[in-house]
């Protein structure tokens, strides 16, 4: 596969990977938000997604790691902002 060398493509890849984590996790995202253990609960899946992401995205891409972390929060947390939980 062609290596990702632009921030825009890296951002896109991160969002796709994280949205896949959510799609395949089923109820676990909601339960994780309710119990405030989302990132521990999905640690394995997130680590696999991160490994793939870092493998595909060139080290020269600015803020490579932060792009993934932004997607993590944006898709898993903000994307599920309607979940009823004490954390907000």
């Amino acid at each position: 596969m062609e290596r990702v060398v632009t921030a825009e493509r890296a951002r896109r890849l991160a969002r796709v990977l994280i949205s896949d984590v959510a799609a395949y996790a089923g109820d676990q995202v909601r339960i994780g938000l309710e119990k405030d253990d989302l990132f521990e609960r999905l640690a394995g899946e997130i680590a696999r997604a991160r490994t793939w992401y870092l493998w595909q995205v060139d080290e020269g891409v600015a803020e490579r790691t932060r792009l993934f972390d932004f997607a993590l929060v944006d898709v898993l947390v903000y994307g599920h902002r309607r979940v009823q939980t004490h954390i907000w």
Partner: protein
Amino acid sequence: MRSLAEQNYYELIEAPLEGTPQQIERAYRIARATYLPSSAATYSLYSAEDCAAILRRIEEAYAVLSDARLRREYDARLGRTEPATPASVREARPEPPKPLEPVRERRPEPVAAKRPAQAELDVENGFDPENGVFDGEVLRRIRVSLGIELEEISTITKINDQHLRSIEGNQYEVLPAPVYLRGFLKQIAKCLSLDPARVADSYSNRMRESASRRD
């Protein structure tokens, strides 16, 4: 659990003792990526010095395990009576794409519906399907590489996302009837700019092979 320093090379990179050269290579890449300074997976667990030391040991492990002769000697030192099959023999036999690995169940809450298999992303393979086979894992890899979310495929094709997950997860037993499945596969292939007929034929063949193996 033994510390990293006490683990043998196989344990260190989490490779199977009888692993093929491809499995060793893949395990090495994953282990290396895990302990790179940029990896957030371990940044809070190990200091930069620790990571550097582990990375050195991972490189050392790979140098030995990727060399057939060194690996045999190492296996003998580990007390393994039957050294791993020589790399040349294993390399001559292409491996079929690996089935998707289910998510490890570790959660106390019962899940209402059966969870679909989590497609483990293969960091070693790229776009091209191995042996020309389009199975669920390959389709997922292509989709991710193109930057297309599952939800987008569902929106475009009107295929229920549960069906899409089952297709990508090679969950043949819960897939719709073949006539519908073929239509779904063709629609997915179009979204991924693949040859619809080829994808549908390939996936269906793989599904039949799987069914015949079970019988």
